[in-house]
């Protein structure tokens, strides 16, 4: 029953191959049928696998499918093999399900694109790589998928490559990810030589046999986390993700929000058995996560490009997932990953629908009142906003609150407080986005009137989405076609009910999802929260996660607190952007320094550019021109010239001092000098003479030695 798992990645792979090779000749209908059909097939197969899985007893829910041996040398044995357990099946369902919806959406969104087949080919290729990533049974195959999704991300960010900024954004994404992968690879190496295996099951078995020292575990986990931080856009490697919004909006939704960027979280959850060995690494993950969550939230407060706000929001939400896995709440992190996939995909697709409907506009200052023209988009977008803001009973509430609660209950009070503050920011910037875009008067015609907060100078990567399409600002705003609105509605339903699988025990829920994944995280039931003075958790204790019976009241209290703060935050946004519209401008003026800092994203891009890139380029030039051409070649040329001189001198010696018998040798040397000086086809004969003479000399030499 298990030998069809390989079909799950194969279907999208076939779609990609066909669409990329001959898609141009097939017609758009066939192309989209092939592309969507393949993904639907994968989704159905994943669903079938899911039902097979839940039929098994809870602790035996593992399906393993070896396809072939990829590398086998010495101890190294890496197979192309798939592992489906409760963790990866959730990922598979989310990936194939959301992918399918976004493929369908793309049929409408990309309808007029001249590179239609290539788009779907790339998108299918992405899904293939993503399935490899989540279903891989070993780190090496996961890494293949990991870099594969990076390739697709590169190709799709720069899909409209005619615009230089898009192409540059793609390049940036790939290179920053490569820096992350640098750490990831080293992590794999260290892990392999420590435990002699790359497969997840093999590693767990090896760990059971001979435990790893904490130092080694910390090193491995931190190296792997470098990879995770690159792929999942965490501090300090997040800089590529906002620029990545240059790609078509469905790509932003699928790759840069719902699936690929969550790979880092998934990887850590997958490696949970290793991370729990290193409290230090876990703490680093949690701190980086919550810091990113807050930091990105502050930037999102002032951005005016609708996709930029969502991009920073994504970075921020990913931070929450890392906070979750970092405090040992792996299930909660994955739960948030899943709900986030629903509502963030919906937000991006909704924004795409707005961009589509307004003829390519992305600047929220030129929107407003869109809700009247695009009711479906508006309502679905609103649902997603409520979900991400964390209002019960929408999806985001349960998952985010679960993370915050686990953070609090595991003793990380400071991290919890920062996380809560981030949640308040989330509610504010998302409400601001909704109010600016959908409410008030339409501002599309006041294009020339710029509010005080100017566009940051330098680079504005994605002020328009599609240079190939007609994007008149005066185009009539209209609702998007059905292929686009139906996926919106499906995702809206998921954003409403998606959280119900994880209602916490405190609310008399069953928390199915945590229970379902529990066997995967069985080894990590006990999280050692040592006394981390740095986090202020002076009263921290060793707490078994998930067993906090006496804390139900506290959990409920904190829930009420966070919901209350979120509601206040939303009202604040309402007050600023609907009631007293002059307030944001006044605040921006009053705190102009801070405002500029946020608007320019803390100038991190500029610092990277000036400090890192510039000095690298300077070094390159020194090496290539000063050393290679300046030193080494000078020596070589000098040697060459002096050889010619020596040859000439010895030639002169031969001619004038030694004559007759040794003439042959002398002339050859001279001939060599001339060949060296003036190589021309005409001198072929001279050269051959020399070679012959050389061989004669050689034989003579041997003769001489043998005789001796």
């Amino acid at each position, binding site marked *: 029953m298990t030998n069809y798992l390989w079909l799950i990645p194969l279907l999208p792979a076939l779609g990609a191959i066909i669409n990329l090779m001959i898609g141009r000749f097939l017609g758009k209908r066939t192309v989209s049928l092939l592309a969507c059909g393949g993904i639907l097939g994968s989704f159905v197969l994943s669903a079938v696998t899911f039902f097979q899985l839940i039929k098994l007893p809870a602790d035996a829910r593992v399906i393993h499918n070896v396809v072939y041996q990829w*590398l086998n040398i010495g101890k190294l044995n890496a197979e192309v093999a798939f592992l489906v357990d409760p963790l990866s099946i959730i990922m598979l369902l989310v990936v194939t399900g959301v992918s399918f919806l976004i493929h369908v959406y793309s049929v409408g969104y990309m309808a007029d694109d001249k590179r239609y087949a290539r788009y779907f080919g790339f998108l299918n290729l992405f899904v293939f790589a993503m399935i490899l990533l989540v279903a891989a049974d070993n780190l*090496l195959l996961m890494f293949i998928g990991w870099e594969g999704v990076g*390739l697709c991300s590169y190709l799709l960010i720069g899909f409209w490559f005619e615009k230089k900024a898009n192409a540059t954004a793609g390049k940036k994404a790939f290179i920053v990810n490569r820096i992350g992968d640098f750490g990831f690879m080293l992590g794999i190496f260290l892990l392999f030589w420590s435990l002699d295996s790359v497969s997840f099951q093999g590693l767990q078995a090896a760990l059971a046999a001979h435990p790893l020292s904490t130092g080694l575990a910390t090193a491995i986990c931190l190296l792997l986390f470098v990879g995770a931080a690159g792929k999942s856009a965490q501090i300090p490697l997040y800089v590529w993700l906002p620029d990545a919004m240059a790609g078509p909006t469905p790509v932003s939704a699928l790759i840069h929000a719902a699936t690929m960027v969550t790979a880092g979280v998934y990887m850590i959850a997958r490696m949970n058995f290793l991370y729990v060995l290193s409290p230090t690494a876990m703490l680093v993950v949690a701190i980086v996560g919550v810091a990113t969550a807050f930091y990105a939230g502050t930037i999102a407060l002032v951005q005016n490009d609708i996709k930029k706000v969502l991009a920073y929001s994504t970075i921020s939400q990913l931070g929450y997932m890392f906070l979750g896995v970092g405090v040992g709440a792996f299930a909660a992190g994955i739960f948030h990953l899943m709900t986030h996939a629903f509502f963030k995909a919906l937000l991006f697709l909704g924004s795409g629908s707005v961009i589509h409907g307004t003829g390519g506009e992305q600047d929220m200052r030129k929107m407003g009142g869109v809700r009247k023209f695009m009711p479906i988009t508006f309502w679905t977008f609103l649902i997603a906003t409520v979900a991400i803001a964390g209002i019960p009973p929408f999806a985001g509430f349960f998952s985010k609150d679960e993370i915050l609660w686990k953070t609090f209950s595991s003793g990380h009070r400071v991290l919890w407080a920062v996380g809560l503050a981030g949640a308040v920011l989330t509610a504010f910037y998302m409400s601001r986005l909704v109010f600016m875009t959908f409410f008030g008067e339409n501002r599309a015609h006041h294009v020339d009137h710029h509010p005080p907060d100017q566009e940051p100078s330098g680079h504005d990567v994605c002020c328009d989405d599609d240079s190939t399409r007609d994007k008149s600002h005066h185009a009539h705003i209209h609702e998007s076609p059905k292929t686009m609105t139906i996926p919106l509605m499906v995702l809206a339903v998921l954003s409403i009910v998606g959280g119900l699988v994880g209602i916490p025990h405190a609310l008399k829920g069953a928390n199915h999802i945590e229970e379902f994944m529990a066997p995967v995280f069985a080894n990590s039931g006990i999280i050692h929260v040592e006394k981390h003075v740095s986090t202020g958790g002076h009263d921290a204790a060793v707490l078994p996660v998930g067993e906090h019976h006496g804390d139900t009241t506290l959990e409920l209290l904190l829930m009420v607190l966070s919901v209350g703060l979120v509601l206040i935050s939303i009202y604040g946004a309402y007050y600023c952007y609907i009631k007293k519209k002059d307030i944001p401008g006044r605040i921006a003026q009053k705190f102009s320094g801070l405002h500029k800092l946020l608007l320019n994203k803390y100038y991190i891009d500029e610092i990277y550019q000036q400090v890192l890139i510039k000095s690298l380029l300077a070094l*390159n030039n020194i090496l290539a021109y000063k050393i290679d051409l300046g030193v080494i070649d000078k020596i070589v040329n000098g040697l060459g010239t002096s050889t010619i001189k020596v040859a000439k001198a010895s030639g002169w010696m031969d001619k004038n001092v030694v004559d007759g018998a040794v003439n042959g040798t002398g002339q050859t040397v001279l001939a060599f000098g001339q060949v060296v000086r003036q*190589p021309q086809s005409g001198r072929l004969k001279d050269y051959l003479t020399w070679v012959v003479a050389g061989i004669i000399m050689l034989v003579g030499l041997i003769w001489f030695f043998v005789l001796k």
Partner: protein
Amino acid sequence: MHSHLLTLLIFMPILAVPLILLLPRKSHGAIRITAAVFTGIQLALAIYLCAIFTDTGDFQFKEKYNWIETFNIQYYLGIDGISILMVLLTPLICFLAVFASWGINKGVKGYFSLMLLLNTGMMGVFCALDFFLFYVFWEITLLPMYFLIGIWGGPRKEYAAIKFFLYTLVGSVLMLLVMLAFYFKSDPHTFDLTELANQYKNFTSFGIIAFIGLYIAFAVKVPAFPFHTWLPDAHTEAPTAISVILAGILLKMGVYGILRICLPILPEATRSLAIYLVIIGVINIIYGALCTMAQKDMKRLIAYSSISHMGFCLLGIGVAVSGVAVVKDAVIGLNGAVLQMFNHGCISGMLFLLAGVIYDRAHHRDIDGFGGLANRMPLYTAMMTLAIFASMGLPGLSGFVGEFLVFLGAFKVNMPATVIAVFGVVLTAGYFLWMFRRMFLGPLNPKYANLTEINGREMFTLVPLGLIVIFVGIYPMPVINMVNNSLVRLLELVAR
């Protein structure tokens, strides 16, 4: 036929030379077709050879005849896993090179004759098991390469050819001296490489010096820092097909020489100097990559990237020898090095072919002088994408397998070196994507609005290499199985 298969393989191309010389000077078509037919037959033989080859760790298809009995010089051929991939790659690259030379109109007879002679020389190097024979074939490659660059090259061809010649000649002289030393130290005197390996104890007294002499000879070819500066010039000036052969095969002769001669004959010296191979390998990778980033000429960029990528071979050999105490772990890195030889041959071959395609159309290679080519030449862009991502070591393509194994092997033996070397993959992504962005993406440069798409003949030269790159990336085991036993055997010799 099996008993003379290698002889046939080596001399098949040179059989075409008299025919070509007999053809009328103006009949370019006939000359090209003759060259294509003979290299085609050679390629078919090589494929057949690979099909019936199983790696036992021993030499196979041996041919052994006395050549110059007085000096115990033998015509001794044979192949094992170390050479099999090169014995396949050489005919393939040379066959494709014939088609990449279709545009050569000057001195066609001489050009193809020299190219075929070069082919024979290279095949000889990879098959010879007698040091003297090896040396003769080694020198045979020098001559045609010199003229092919010096006559059919670009504007600075003289300088490039001389530079190539001087560097290589210095190396050859050193190799000659060491060869003679081996001969006189051995008892009975012999040039037989397997016999020399058996007598390795005779060479311990001067092992270090002999190793350094041989190393310089081979390092020039690799090319290893600081003997690398001939390569960018040679590549920039050489015609496309010659660049392809140079990068695809000639450079591998250096790595092959180290594997075939230094390791088995000088095990002790190799072991004690292995750390320097590691260091030079890392320098090649990083220094080469940094220099690559500063290049403005497409071919020079690819040439420098070759320097960087050949560093992986040196690193792989260095770490395998360093860690030879545990052969089954050490062989991982050595597999990587040998695979990298083969992969780099295919990938750099593709890159130079691709550089030739655009040069034939635009007559320059200035990276900043293009822009938006993807718009005009989608198929060409697709092939370039494949080649650069393979070169970047994208998992799923062949480049990754070699690099990964080298790194994995290296990590156990020398962690700091590995950390530095792995950073090279970030730099590789940097320079290739930078080049790709400038040349292929962005708005189309109006100057090139009428460029024609890559044609059928050019695709024909690229597709076989592209397929190999994909196949080896997805399913590397058949290739590993062809080399692994011989490499284990080789390391056992080193461990003595």
